[in-house]
């Protein structure tokens, strides 16, 4: 990560770590939702920001993580933590499968965006229809508050776990950005032919990116299931999460390790603020999100992280 953005990120993380100890439940709810979206967005960023392919269907991974975590517990009596781990693995597998099919077929750009969207929709329709996932009525996880069961009496504990996941993936993203793998991702993103000529296996590199990405976004889904203890197909595989994951990255700063965190927090804060002002009008916050997406691309393509970077660079001079 660029040195100038490191300081604000550190400050932000400390604040986020301290807040749950004192905050009211509504604030913690807000924080947990924002952190879950951050995690999903971090997953999106590992693929779209680092390696290039834009997905419009990250719900496919989020939902898989959520359902595997929940179904293994409720139907097969698997321990919740084990279910969470299995959910993350399943996200990687689904990522690998979708990636293998579409990258091998040479799909890129808009085509890749569309096929990921279609996969997520197929998953949604199927999850809405089959009994395993509870069909249209959804899946309710039994309330059984024990840490060994990944359920906590205090919401703050959950917020810290979500924050822990976000920090872990942040560290992972920074490490990748500074490694050979990161250079290979960037090379594939910038120019596939040149990457090939320099000995990079483009297909394998993209598959690594999408597996990682799927796993991280699936972790977000698993957290969602454990926190809200309820899932249905429109939550788990709904387009809302595909959109928020992508939007948080674009607003926060695409391809930067801290971008998803900035973006998700800013968007959620904004969403709350609109709800405060526009009250009960449903959809008004999303209208704003849509316009922000357009505006971000028009006026701030580098996102919050990029603006911070150039701001602090100017400061030093």
């Amino acid at each position, binding site marked *: 990560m660029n040195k100038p953005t490191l300081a604000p990120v550190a400050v932000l993380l400390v604040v986020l770590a301290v807040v749950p100890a004192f905050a009211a439940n509504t604030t913690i709810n807000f924080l947990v939702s924002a952190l879950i979206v951050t995690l999903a967005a971090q997953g999106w960023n590992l693929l779209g920001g680092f390696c290039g392919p834009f997905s419009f269907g990250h719900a496919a991974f989020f939902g898989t993580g959520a359902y595997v975590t929940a179904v293994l517990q409720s139907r097969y009596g698997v321990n919740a933590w084990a279910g969470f781990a299995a959910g993350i693995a399943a996200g990687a597998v689904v990522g690998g499968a979708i990636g293998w099919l579409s990258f091998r077929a040479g799909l890129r750009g808009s085509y890749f965006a*569309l096929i990921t969207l279609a996969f997520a929709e197929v998953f949604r329709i199927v999850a809405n229809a089959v009994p395993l996932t509870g069909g249209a009525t959804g899946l309710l996880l039994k309330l059984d508050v024990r840490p060994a069961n990944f359920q906590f009496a205090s919401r703050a504990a959950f917020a810290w776990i979500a924050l822990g996941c976000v920090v872990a993936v942040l560290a992972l993203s920074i490490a990748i950005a500074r490694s050979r793998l990161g250079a290979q991702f960037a090379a594939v993103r910038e120019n596939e032919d040149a990457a090939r000529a320099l000995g990079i296996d483009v297909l394998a590199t993209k598959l690594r990116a999408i597996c990682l990405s799927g796993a991280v976004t699936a972790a977000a889904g698993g957290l969602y299931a454990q926190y809200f203890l309820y899932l249905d197909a429109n939550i788990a595989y709904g387009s809302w999460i595909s959109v928020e994951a992508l939007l948080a990255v674009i607003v926060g700063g695409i391809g930067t390790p801290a971008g998803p965190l900035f973006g998700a927090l800013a968007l959620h804060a904004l969403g709350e603020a609109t709800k405060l002002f526009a009250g009960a009008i*449903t959809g008004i916050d999303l209208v704003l999100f849509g316009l922000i997406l357009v505006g971000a691309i028009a006026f701030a393509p580098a996102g919050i992280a990029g603006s911070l970077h150039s701001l602090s660079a100017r400061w030093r001079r």
Partner: protein
Amino acid sequence: MYTPSIIAEAVVNGLLTGAVYALVALGLTLVYGVLHIINFAHGALLTCAMFAVWALSDGLGLNVYLTIPPLAVLFLCLGYGLQRWVIGPASHGDDGNTLLVTLGLSIAIENGLLAAFHADTRTLSGDAAFDVVELGPMLLSRPRLIGFGVAVLVAVLLWALLAGTDAGKAIRAVAKEKMGASLAGIDVRHIYALTFGLGCACLAVAAGLLMPTFYVNPRVGNAFVLVAFTIVVLGGMGSVPGALLGGLLIGVVESLGGLFLGESLGQAGIFVLFILVLLLRPAGLFGARA
């Protein structure tokens, strides 16, 4: 039992619906063929047009087919303005950006409609949906027959416009060789916006044809847009005849799929078909180059 006449009726009904799908896809493929961008806001704009038809027809009591000409003109202008002053400048000429900008627009439009009209599903009052015509052993819906006729007519008109008029020639020139067209004195930004406007006008017509037998809610466009993408990919991105054939084919597939598999899985069938086409024949079934 699936008697031959039931199947034949499903096929014919599929063709009738397919023609309107084709019209939606036509707008999409036209924009892709000329601007080389995927307009992700296509579905949301269709929803918008359907609400407009509903408002004019149910609110003001206008005959639904009479709403089509003014709305087509309005959407032509709307599309022109969107591309010229919003999508074009905001994307900085980058395809990935265009995709995201149109995604942003679709989110804004869809939820704007949600805020304005709530999530309720609305249909036109009156019983146009039950107005049937007997054709041999088959009972066919009159509005769908009209829809088929008008959709085909519009497709032919569009083709004639592209083939015969100066504007059409300019559009084709830009589609083929943007740089050359620009050197020849064609205002590329104007042509882009015009093409986008034509694509939106197709949506207005499609909306007028759909409303008598269909419903509208703020999310209805999503279903259509994926169907339209499937058609466009099937027919070969940018190919006008491909969109027509693809539309008819998808209409029949959906109709037969619904007959044999039931509604909800029939819906998944479209996406699976879409995925298969992208994976196996990304250049389209009819072989046009992508």
